[in-house]
């Protein structure tokens, strides 16, 4: 399996928790700490990698197989692997999750990337808005590992 999941959350601890679960199930993981980083990572995805940011597998979270947005050694021109699924928080600095969905929705190149929202928010109006913007699912924190993996396997594109 070589599906890459982009985890977008401003909490490094949550990103590490998610990475632990996803890596253990065979997914590869990229991280972004806010919506701006996430959109930059997505913008760079799908382009042939330049070398330095090729992911390695089988290392624990925080290790070499987690690709953090903005810290690749090769600089801003590095490519990212194609994103199979985005796991997206809502309440984040700089650009929140709904704004990320709006940006993706308006971008024909990336509007088909599946997005699973993972947030503390549970208001129906927010969920309806996310659905309008093309999100594929909404999960209210805390996540249960088996449920998260079931959703990831269902939603991640090959």
């Amino acid at each position: 399996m070589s599906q890459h999941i982009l985890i977008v959350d401003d909490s490094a601890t949550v990103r590490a928790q998610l990475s632990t679960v996803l890596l253990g199930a065979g997914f590869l993981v990229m991280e972004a700490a806010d919506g701006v980083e996430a959109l930059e990572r997505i913008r760079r995805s799908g382009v042939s990698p330049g070398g330095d940011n090729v992911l390695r597998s089988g290392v624990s979270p925080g290790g070499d197989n987690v690709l953090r947005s903005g810290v690749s050694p090769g600089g801003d021109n590095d490519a990212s692997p194609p994103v199979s699924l985005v796991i997206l928080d809502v309440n984040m600095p700089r650009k929140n999750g709904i704004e990320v969905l709006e940006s993706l929705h308006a971008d024909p190149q990336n509007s088909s990337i599946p997005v699973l929202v993972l947030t503390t928010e549970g208001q129906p109006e927010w969920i309806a808005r996310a659905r309008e913007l093309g999100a594929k699912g909404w999960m209210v924190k805390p996540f249960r590992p088996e449920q998260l993996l079931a959703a990831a396997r269902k939603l991640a594109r090959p």
Partner: protein
Amino acid sequence: MTPESLPILDALMIEVTIDLFAGYGVEVHYLGCGASDPPEDVTVAGVIDFFGDDFRGTLLVAATASFFARTSYLPPPTPHATVLDWAGELANQLLGRLKNRLYGRGITMEVSTPKSLSGAPLSTPKANSTRAYIFRDSEQQIWVRLDVLTSDGVDLAHPRSDGGEAVHEGDLVLF
């Protein structure tokens, strides 16, 4: 806020705190309302603000660094930066639970991004609007403080008129 709303708010706060930590495998018990400042061994706190037309203020959750490390589900040793990050995230998740409960009672609010702090002793300004709740697990105390200002007419005793409810924690909705 109506007089009958205050005990409802207290009950919700106690419920969501117990539920939050149960979700991370830690059983906490409510001890009661305490002094406005936490015990001296409580040195880490997560803080988050909320704001809306009828309900605004700050929520703070404080405990020892070892408590936060224990609930993070990450392998030890836990760096202090991780403890601080997790304290902020727990404040965010605790407020999220309260926000989702209050939604069903007609209260809506926006939230800030969380912050965290550490030091000893932790001291915070006191106000008439302060509610402080003390909890304990098998090893130590957890201290939750809610500073809230509400409009006079806020009534938590009744569900919202349209019957709407927020999605509950741990629930997954696929579209």
